[in-house]
């Protein structure tokens, strides 16, 4: 695996040398990549008027070119992640059909980028108690990791951590917010 990672790194450094993504580089150092790399990222065109159009552009992340995605920094990737979160029913750590489909898709991405390490964060909605939710989030993360491993992803590529209800994604207090907060969230921790 280290050799594969090495190959990818070499390729990376060839294609995106300017970005200077050395292996252990802290995410802080983010020199703006001059010109080349951001293939898919749209550099602001000259005419200022089409700002509304720029907002309408977002179809592009769906069809990101492979080079584009692997050239992006971990921070960028996590901000606009290729991984989708798996959602859970209330008070449950069982992956339902939709959740398994999401994890299957995420496993495909992990297979495509074999150097990526991910952390699966277990999150809960605010309706459970602070204390219990930490264990529930842990179980959600474990459920996802177990399913990833059943799909052939090596366990050492997946770390888990529970945040209980400490970090809600939607600060609302309704069904939609709660559903959005009951999730296993994928974070790329190294690549």
């Amino acid at each position, binding site marked *: 695996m280290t050799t594969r990672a090495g190959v990818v790194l070499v390729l990376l450094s060839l294609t995106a040398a300017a970005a200077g993504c050395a292996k252990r580089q802290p995410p802080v150092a983010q020199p703006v990549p001059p010109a080349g790399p951001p293939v898919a990222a749209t550099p602001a065109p000259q005419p200022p008027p089409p700002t509304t159009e720029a907002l309408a552009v977002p179809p592009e992340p769906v069809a990101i070119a492979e080079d584009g995605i692997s050239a992006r920094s971990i921070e960028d990737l996590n901000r606009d992640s290729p991984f989708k979160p798996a959602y859970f029913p209330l008070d449950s750590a069982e992956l339902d059909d939709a959740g398994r489909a999401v994890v299957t898709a995420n496993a495909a991405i992990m297979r495509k980028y074999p150097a990526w390490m991910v952390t699966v964060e277990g999150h809960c909605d605010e309706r459970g*108690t602070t*204390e219990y939710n930490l*264990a529930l989030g842990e179980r959600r993360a474990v459920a996802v990791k177990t399913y990833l491993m059943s799909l052939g992803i090596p366990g050492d590529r997946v770390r888990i951590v529970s*945040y209980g209800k400490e970090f809600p994604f939607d600060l609302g207090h309704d069904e939609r917010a709660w559903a959005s907060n009951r999730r296993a969230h994928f974070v790329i921790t190294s690549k």
Partner: protein
Amino acid sequence: MNICNSQLPKSQLPRRHVWTPVVLALVLGVGSWALGVGNWQLGVVRGQQPAPQQPSEIAVVISGDPGTPPRYAVPDFVAASPEAADAAKTITQVLFDDLAFEREFYLIPRDTYTTIPAARTPDQVPFAAWRELGADAVVFGAVSRTGNDVRVEVRLFNIRTQQSVFSKEYTGTAANPRLYAHTIADEIHQQQRALRGVARTKLAFSSDRNRERMVGTAENRDVKEVYMADYDGANPRRITTNRQLNIFPVWSPDARAIAYTSYRRGYPDLFIALIYEGLQQEPTKGGTQNWLPMYSPDGTRIVFNSNRDGNPELYVMNRDGSGLRRITNHPAIDTTPTWSPTGTQIAFTSDRAGTPQIYIIGADGLNLRRLTTSESYADRSTWSPAPFNEIAFAARTGPGYDIKIYDLATGTTRQVTFGEGSNESPAYAPNGRHLAFTSTRAGRVQIFTIGRDGRGVKQVTRDGSNFTPSWSN
């Protein structure tokens, strides 16, 4: 400087009373301000007295009219000089609040006796005016200040007998005048009601009040740090500074250490802050995920939650991390442990029956039994100290939670909060008469205290959001 004049001829003093000022330096450094005062026992004072003619316990206690609590007044402490005025004002107000907190006395509202002249010496006490007001007991005090030093003299008078039943003098730094009031209140409760007051106890909790954001994550995430404060929320002090999640702080029984769960390694693990030594211990030493520590009542062991064997289970270890033993063994969630006062049993939460419910298990992992049967969701059990034999917990009562108390002797459950916001994370005061808990009743999550009978709600925190209180001994 002599306010309560200690040079008074003995004949003018109440016969039984011995006016021996006990001078004790209060050292208010970080190292000892919570504990340096622990050695004052009234026995020390009594030990210096000549043998009283009457048994002192009977004569000293001030009672009210039959069937009613004694009526106490706390007139403004006299400031000997303008620079002592602030301290005198603070001490008076805090003492009033402290004496009211235990609800052993009826505190006469302070604005009803502003016209009664202040007594600068014991023989100036206008007993007639106080009797007319209906006071059974009046606490007089005087504060003088020299530079950074303060001297507080206090006397408790029985208005009926016109006797001083309690008199002390305290000297120390002027840095924390509230501590004088807390000490006086604890000693009056001890002497008058044989009650261990909580005025000098502390709360530990986690808070986002510093409004810092976590570094190095894609999302905007608030950090939480561990704080401590006086039982009334005053004097908040920050304990952790690592800009991560620092949650679930709990006091060691000697109140010198706070164990907590921190994500500083990127995952939850246990840490112990020795707050007066400025040291940190790591009993679980990383590598596994551990959270929700709780000290045994004798302080030698810690029960905690861990997924080291793949599932949230309970473990017990010695305080230093040695002697690890697994307590629960079930594929369901087992979490949120609390010790019985004797350290022989552990109450915890498990969803092994489908929903989170409270169970009790021996500290050896044997003799499991289920406690809650009529709740849809119960968590954060917390076992009362003796003499009470009950377990408080948070129970789902609708969209949110309320604090309920299970009486182990009768097997009955009573409710303490009633749907004002969501109420979670109960923690007993060391004398078992109060609970700290969190509530959303005032907007954001804040810490409140309440009597175990459900009366006397007080908001303790107001800054930021505040979570999971622990009450020190």
